């Protein structure tokens, strides 16, 4: 077992990792930028070292300074959290070369899944259906037109190195195609440093459903069921839940089994998530695999009773899987609302000082956050300030619990997404589980227009 772990992240996920380490009796080292000197991960870690100025590229993405810190503080392992270096195959490689355990899969696995086009063809070969599309990145206009015609419109253009909705364009006809491809390539080049894009079939009313998997370094793998993340804005998730309303135990077992077989064949280890688009006929199409812990992991933790971060650490230390598939039970319903520091209507970021703060409690309520009263939300990082997660016996109970928790959440001084969450929760289509990935866009369209006209 590890003696000491460096937490290469900030915010709520850095704290979440520190919780797990404290419970396992492992010492922690926090790294922080000059903007985070008063952050809670700095306060609660056993040691803390400043690794650079506020800009992420000079601090939380500064591999030499993070590795130096790891060597100086004599840690056995690094937990990358999500975002930042968590899906950097290069960083995982540097850790491997420095004999520091990277808590995640091997650098080869990260590299394979990081290339979205390659991941798609590999997973398709291993038995997961994918949407019809270009097998590889598109290089010429002629190629783009031929591919789109063959698949049939609408199509979606995606960045090979993609994520977070950048480098994505939906195209409804040939006249929009080439311009959209150029814009997507330019966006991909600036966001990921690589302009390559691929084209695939676009489903109008799709659900986003993902499977949580866990695999050890001895060839064992299990799945921990699904999360539905159809409530998104600009391809960024806002509400996640488990189970999905369309799921049945039989369908879960069938898709779950395929997923487990596929990742066993890739030799994957540690936790991971396979994302699927699901059409109205409940057909699952593999989109991509995230090779890290995800923001919405608590939803799975509440329905399965499993501590995913703890298990990540145990697996990285070489332990065998602590659970067998037949032991995994799904109890009740969990929901997560992401409370972001942003305008609930325009989604513009709203950094600044939190003047007043109360986070709700009571039965079935969990708040994962690193914010507090008087905390200043820095403008340099992502806008997530808290995850409000609830558990109930049924979906209806979970929704009512979430609604009262949101009502009792006091967060003043900055704008946040709480009013938007309450609006979604009160929507009758949402209550019925009648949701798809463009639900929020359609809910907000009239309001955004009204704001723009005013």
């Amino acid at each position, binding site marked *: 077992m590890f003696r000491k772990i460096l937490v290469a992240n900030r915010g709520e996920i850095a704290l979440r990792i520190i919780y797990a380490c404290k419970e396992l009796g492992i010492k922690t080292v926090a790294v922080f930028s000059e903007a985070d000197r008063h952050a809670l991960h700095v306060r609660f870690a056993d040691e803390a*070292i400043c*690794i650079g100025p506020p800009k992420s590229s000079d601090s939380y993405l500064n591999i030499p300074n*993070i590795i130096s*810190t790891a060597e100086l503080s004599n840690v056995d392992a690094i937990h990358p959290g999500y975002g930042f270096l968590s899906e950097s195959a290069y960083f995982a490689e540097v850790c491997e070369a420095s004999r520091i355990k990277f808590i995640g899969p091997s650098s080869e696995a990260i590299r394979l899944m990081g290339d979205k086009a390659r991941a798609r063809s590999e997973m398709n070969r291993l038995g997961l259906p994918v949407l019809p599309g270009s097998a590889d990145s598109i290089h010429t206009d002629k190629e783009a037109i031929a591919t789109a015609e063959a698949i049939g419109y609408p199509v979606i253009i995606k960045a090979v190195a993609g994520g977070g909705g950048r480098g994505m364009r939906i195209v409804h006809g040939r006249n929009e195609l080439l311009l959209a491809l150029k814009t997507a390539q330019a966006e991909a080049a600036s966001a990921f440093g690589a302009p390559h894009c691929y084209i695939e079939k676009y489903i109008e009313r799709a659900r986003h459903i993902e499977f949580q998997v866990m695999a050890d370094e001895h060839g064992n793998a299990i799945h921990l069921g699904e999360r539905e993340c159809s409530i998104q804005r600009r391809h960024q998730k806002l509400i996640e839940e488990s189970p999905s309303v369309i799921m049945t135990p039989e369908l879960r077992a069938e898709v779950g089994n395929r997923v487990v077989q596929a990742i066993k064949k890739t030799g994957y280890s540690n936790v991971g998530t396979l994302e699927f688009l699901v059409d109205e006929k409940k057909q699952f199409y593999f989109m991509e695999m995230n090779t890290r812990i995800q923001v919405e992991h608590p939803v799975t933790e509440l329905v399965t009773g499993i501590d995913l971060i703890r298990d990540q650490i145990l697996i990285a230390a070489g332990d065998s899987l602590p659970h067998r598939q037949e032991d995994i039970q799904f109890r009740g319903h969990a929901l997560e609302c992401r409370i972001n520091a942003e305008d609930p209507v325009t989604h513009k970021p709203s950094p600044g000082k939190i003047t007043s703060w109360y986070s709700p409690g009571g039965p079935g309520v969990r708040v994962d956050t690193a914010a507090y009263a008087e905390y200043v939300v820095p403008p340099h990082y992502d806008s997530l300030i808290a995850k409000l997660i609830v558990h109930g016996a049924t979906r209806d109970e979970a929704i009512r619990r979430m609604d009262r928790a949101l009502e009792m959440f006091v967060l003043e001084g900055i704008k946040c997404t709480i009013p938007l969450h309450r609006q979604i929760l009160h929507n009758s289509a949402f209550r019925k589980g009648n949701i798809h990935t463009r639900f929020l866009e359609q809910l907000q369209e009239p309001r955004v227009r009204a704001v723009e006209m005013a």
Partner: protein
Amino acid sequence: MNLKELKEIIDIVTSNESIEELEIEKSGVRLRIRRSSNHVTSVSTVPVASIAASPAISATPVPPKAVVETEELFYIKSPIVGTFYTGPSPDSESFVSVGDMVEKGSVLCIIEAMKLMNEIESEVAGEIVSVLVDNGQPVEYGEKLFAIRPR
């Protein structure tokens, strides 16, 4: 602010009994003088930046001499995370010692990071007033390494 100015300010406060307390903030230094039974009992000045971070420091009276020096000094800070070495190898002499005059660009120390020896150069010309880190100690980003009185 130099010693002469500081003395003048104290003289003004002590000569005028209607002044109970005086607080001045100027170019990064905050000075507070408070009268107690007609005597000046506490003169404490600290850089403004450190007041919020460590309120405990501002409660400690600091000798005026040290204060005046603090204000004029230039600090060389570590640009990376690593191990601080005063000389090019364990048994060789330090690049610089207290009292040495250095030029802009003079090598002051080495910070080792990921097996690479990074020479840290002076950003100013002046006299080394203090070496703030012990040989072989780890340093973080932005940590103060040397205090230099600029020439």
